[in-house]
């Protein structure tokens, strides 16, 4: 039955990839990338159960944290053009 879940997650990744390729704006692509990241965590968990090796869950947790930081960094870069942006600096100037 985990085969069904793996197949479903893979199909969803394919659909998200379609959106990443089609996506007219950069935000569609970031959204698709973040969704693929979330699905990768699920895929790690499901494959861990499928092969009877739940150690994959640790990798999933770490990947989740990296996915969040990565998406936020990309968004911040596109919004301010600079990763070291400081809100207070803008208000002073």
């Amino acid at each position, binding site marked *: 039955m985990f085969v069904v879940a793996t197949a479903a997650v893979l199909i*969803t990744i394919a659909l998200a990839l379609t959106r990443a390729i089609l996506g007219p704006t950069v935000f569609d692509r970031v959204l698709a990338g973040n969704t693929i990241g979330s699905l990768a965590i699920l895929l790690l968990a499901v494959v861990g159960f499928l092969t009877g090796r739940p150690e994959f869950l640790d990798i999933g947790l770490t990947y989740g944290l990296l996915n969040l930081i990565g998406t936020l960094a990309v968004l911040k870069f596109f919004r301010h053009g600079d990763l070291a942006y400081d809100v207070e600096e803008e208000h002073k100037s």
Partner: protein
Amino acid sequence: MSLVVDLLSWLLIVLGSFFAIVGGIGLVRMPDVYTRIHAASVIDTLGAGLLILGMILQAGFGLVALKLTFILALFFFFTPVVAHALAQAALHEEIEPLLAEDRRGRGDGPAGGGTDGRQP
């Protein structure tokens, strides 16, 4: 007893798979960025939530179930942050949402214009 738990977990996993695929279809079908975020949130809450709940039932009580709970908490705390940041950044870049109705400039809200979400 274990048969009931097994059946329940299979049901949850199949439902989670279904909602994940529905979210993926929505991601492709929706017309603009903001509506696509709604579709992605179906994957991140219902899809991931039901799949992980099903796996918790499969794993039984123990460290594996605890780690799955951590992953679930990670999803439920961080996906809204990402969705919010994404929508805010898109609005800031002046990508106009497709709207059937705009109630922003009405009532007690700040009148028109100044609601792109920047902190004062």
